[in-house]
């Protein structure tokens, strides 16, 4: 227990109490009045944080505190009852918004500074009222996890929720998701949702929604627009540029987070985005081949083999890494190779051992942009001979998710190799367009 918690215990002080603190500073008494804040998670715990009447927080050294008086303890606030669902307006399309965590919509408690997810219809309507003019919104908080904690079993849960919503008549589904692993989830849903003929839109926010400049509201608005569009498939809708002008809808299997913090971090890789979406409602489809909305019933095919790893090749890498994974019983490896799809030549034999033992080994490139080609250099040709599957222009992350899904369907390595090279969800483009690099 940190000093601050012990101090609060000993003095019977709780978070939220309004207190008067008398402190001795250079022999002089200083008096602070304010509300006790919860101690910062990562602080050493040497100080007590209070919120002064002017709204500022300050930390007070516990060792210097002479006495503390409780002035007022807040009454337990009655829980405000929020409306879960609003009555439907006839004529508007119906969109379900699934919350998985992240703070795409949230509200701030100015007393404590805590940010709460806003996930009742009423809270959402207050945060982003525009979307209720576009569609009848049914919000549902499915889970509340950090996106880095996302797992294949959660992908399956999301897939089932989506299918339930769409098969019961919703016109589209929006999934609010943390941005770190959003693209993985998009890829997973792309493979799991078969016969999908309605929009499934993943959306996130790069700047937290408690700030006036957040990208959350515009991203969400554009997502709901896309969820009502004449489109069927999995897509990621995020800011198209740093300004609050338009969003881009990217294909779920061809999108990647390319910046740690910018609003326009999400980019289509080796592909043209599906559409440009303006919050005011205009949608411009950027390619002729997008799937149109249909009536088919969506089927969830969530069989996944989780013993799959994503391994990056690097100068000086030890073949032991591969051996370790094979010994551990991994069924599939996606290699993020150098350049056209290479590993150090001394690793090739180890990969050969893997394929001989029935492990499916797939090659992608750490260049991210471009297509692998194992015919140009001898290393590539030897990798082909060793049974490595060259994954065309597939993103390493997409190939990783796809391999899990493929191995969930077959344990025959030949069949798995064939399936990896079959285009199921737009993950492979037949040829590389000139205008798809760094855009």
């Amino acid at each position, binding site marked *: 227990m940190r000093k601050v918690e012990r101090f609060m215990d000993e003095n019977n002080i709780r978070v939220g109490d309004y207190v008067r603190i008398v402190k001795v500073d250079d022999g002089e008494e200083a008096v*602070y009045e304010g509300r006790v*804040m919860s101690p910062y998670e990562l602080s050493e715990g040497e100080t007590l944080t209070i919120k002064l009447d002017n709204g*500022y927080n300050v*930390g007070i050294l516990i060792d210097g505190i002479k006495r503390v008086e409780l002035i007022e303890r807040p009454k337990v606030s009655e829980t405000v009852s929020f409306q879960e669902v609003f009555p439907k307006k006839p004529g508007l399309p119906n969109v379900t918004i699934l919350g998985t965590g992240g703070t795409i919509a949230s*509200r701030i408690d100015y007393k404590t500074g805590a940010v709460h997810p806003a996930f009742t219809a009423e809270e959402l309507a*207050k*945060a982003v009222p525009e979307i209720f003019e576009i569609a009848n919104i049914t919000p549902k908080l499915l889970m509340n996890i950090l996106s880095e904690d996302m797992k294949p079993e959660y992908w399956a849960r999301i897939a089932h929720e989506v299918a339930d919503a769409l098969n019961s008549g919703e016109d589209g589904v929006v999934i609010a998701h943390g941005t770190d692993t959003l693209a993985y989830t998009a890829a997973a849903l792309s493979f799991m949702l078969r016969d999908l003929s309605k929009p499934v839109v993943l959306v996130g926010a790069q700047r937290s929604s408690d700030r*006036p400049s957040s990208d959350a509201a515009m991203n969400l608005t554009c997502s709901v627009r896309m969820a009502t569009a004449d489109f069927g498939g999995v897509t990621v809708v995020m800011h198209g540029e740093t*300004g609050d002008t338009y969003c881009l809808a990217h294909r779920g299997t061809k999108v990647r987070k390319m910046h740690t913090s910018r609003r326009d971090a999400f980019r289509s890789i080796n592909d043209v985005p599906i559409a440009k979406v303006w919050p005011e409602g205009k949608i411009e489809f950027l390619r002729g081949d997008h799937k149109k909305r249909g009536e088919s019933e969506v089927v969830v095919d969530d069989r996944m083999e989780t013993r799959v790893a994503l391994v990056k090749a690097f100068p000086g890498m030890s073949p032991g890494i591969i051996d370790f994974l094979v010994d551990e019983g991994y069924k599939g490896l996606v290699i993020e190779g150098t350049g056209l799809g290479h590993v150090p030549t001394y690793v090739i034999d180890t990969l050969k051992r893997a394929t001989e033992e029935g492990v499916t080994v797939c090659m992608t490139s750490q260049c991210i942009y471009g297509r692998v080609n194992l015919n140009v250099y001898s290393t590539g040709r030897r990798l082909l001979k060793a049974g490595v599957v060259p994954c065309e222009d597939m993103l390493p992350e997409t190939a990783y998710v796809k391999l899990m899904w493929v191995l969930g369907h077959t344990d025959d390595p030949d069949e798995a190799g064939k399936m990896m090279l079959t285009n199921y969800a737009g993950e492979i483009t037949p040829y590389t367009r000139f205008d798809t690099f760094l855009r």
Partner: protein
Amino acid sequence: MAEKFDYRELGLKVGLEIHRQLDTKKLFSPVPSELNDGVEFRFQRRLRPTMSEIGEIDPAALEEFKKGRTYIYEGNHRLADLVYIDEEPPRGPDMEALEVSLQIAYLLNAKPVDEVHFMRKIVIDGSNVSGFQRTAIVAMDGRVDTPWGSVGIPTICLEEDACRIVERGEKEVIYRLDRLGIPLVEIATTPDIHHPEQAKVVAKYIGDALRATRKVKRGLGTIRQDLNVSIKGGARVEIKGVQELDMIPLIVEREVERQVNLLKIRDELRERGVKPGDIEEGFYDVTEIFQNTGSKIIARTVKKGGKVLAVKLPGFRGLIGREIQPGRRLGTEMADRAKKYVKGIFHIDELPNYGITELEVNAVIEKLGLGEEDAFVLVAAEEETARNALREVLQRAREAIEGVPEETRRALPDGNTQYMRPLPGKARMYPETDIPSIFLPPEEKERIRSALPELPQEKVERYVKEYGIDRSLAETIINDERDELFEEIIGLGAKPSLVASILIVVLKGLKKEAPIDRITDGHIKEAFQLYLDGKIAKEAFEEIFLGLAEHPEKTAAQIAEEKGLTLLSEEETERIIDEVIQANIDVIRAKGMGAMGMIMGRAMAKLRGRADGKLVSSLVRKKIQELS
């Protein structure tokens, strides 16, 4: 001198809020703190009001958002990185800025907090790209002692400056990013200032403490002083944008005058039995009356299809025209409010005038059915605009019945003030969770406290003692913030008395003649270096400064060269003196040393600024002696 008001009797209360930029890196990423008009990129954003603690959004703010106001930001890659375009979490804070703010705290007798917590203060006018200003209390409970009594300094904050506004349009506001993130120290006092002169003393004391750190920025816009002024029965009025210290007493006095006069108007209105409810929103279309008016403004508006609308202000006759500050009337305050919509208003107390005839005035009075004490205000504009403008006038009239409205006002150059906006509501603040709290260990505080910079008063004493310069000269150097430069030049090897006189007498003396603000410290040091290297005479400084003021892009050496101010070598000097002597050889032969004055005069006419006078004099003397 007898005072204009008995401030104690009036219950004058003044509080100060002083903001000053620090001369460090920006607060939340190591970007230079400079202003630069070069625009290399632009982008567009919108700001949404966020939900309050009770889960509500301010409806007015939301309405504003729905109107679709967009903010355009213009920037320069060197001065605005991703942090300042709100595309990357903040770094920092800049530890130098924090340390300077703690020095200031100690100099103002305040107690630093034990742990600094940065907060987000919501600001959605676009001036902060993020929609909030980051600010933290670094110290509390300071004090300034004055002959009128002690004034408290409850808080000292370290915060980030906002963007500069470039253009405010109806739908679009353009901001420049360079200023965003420059560290600001904000010092607030308690409203315990009870005399206009006391306000200046307190501001001066605080300013001195800030300057003592040598880490504050200088020049226009780097310091912003706000005054909160009220009198008994009046209201708190916040006056923004006071640039000069010397203006503070006058501004306070003028505000007192304004509040006193507004209270008199209130009392008269009450005597006349006027109540806020009497002021009704009734617009009278009086365009007809002005069909053939001599007022050009009205004629033009009517010709374009506009209307002349009038409102009735019962009981206001004679009061709208009443002066409340020199040259400003209640009518001026109404016009200021209406300014959002129209250029100006006409009121009964100033008419007939501006081409409006008595006949027209009487026709309006008749149409509105005004009594002896009733007044009207007219606006000529497109109908909806005119209505909006008159609504503002009616609102100001209602407030006049209550007394003094609480508002934020702008300081005018003559000491008067003008309406800016209503007082801001209570700030909404929450923790800046991207920045860990900063613990200030006692030994760290002690380190800063034991090495505090010299206060200006102490510096004056030192200059007098150490450099042997005049006290008033020393004070001027420090007040003009030339002290740093002064010491640097002395460090180059120049004589203190010369440096002081060149900086204060020569340079400052040129203020009226040339834009000397354009001369940089670097220029001045260059000029002194030329002097110390024997390349120019001290008489040349004036010409060099004039040249640099005109051409700040040039160096002092270039100016000296172009103006022929570089010193001649001893041989060349001697050659010119020889010429003068030869030309006047007869006089020298005749008068001997008696010709010294004349020869010196002729020689200096040719050599002034190009040769040291002492050298010329000794050469002339020698040569005359040789000849006689």
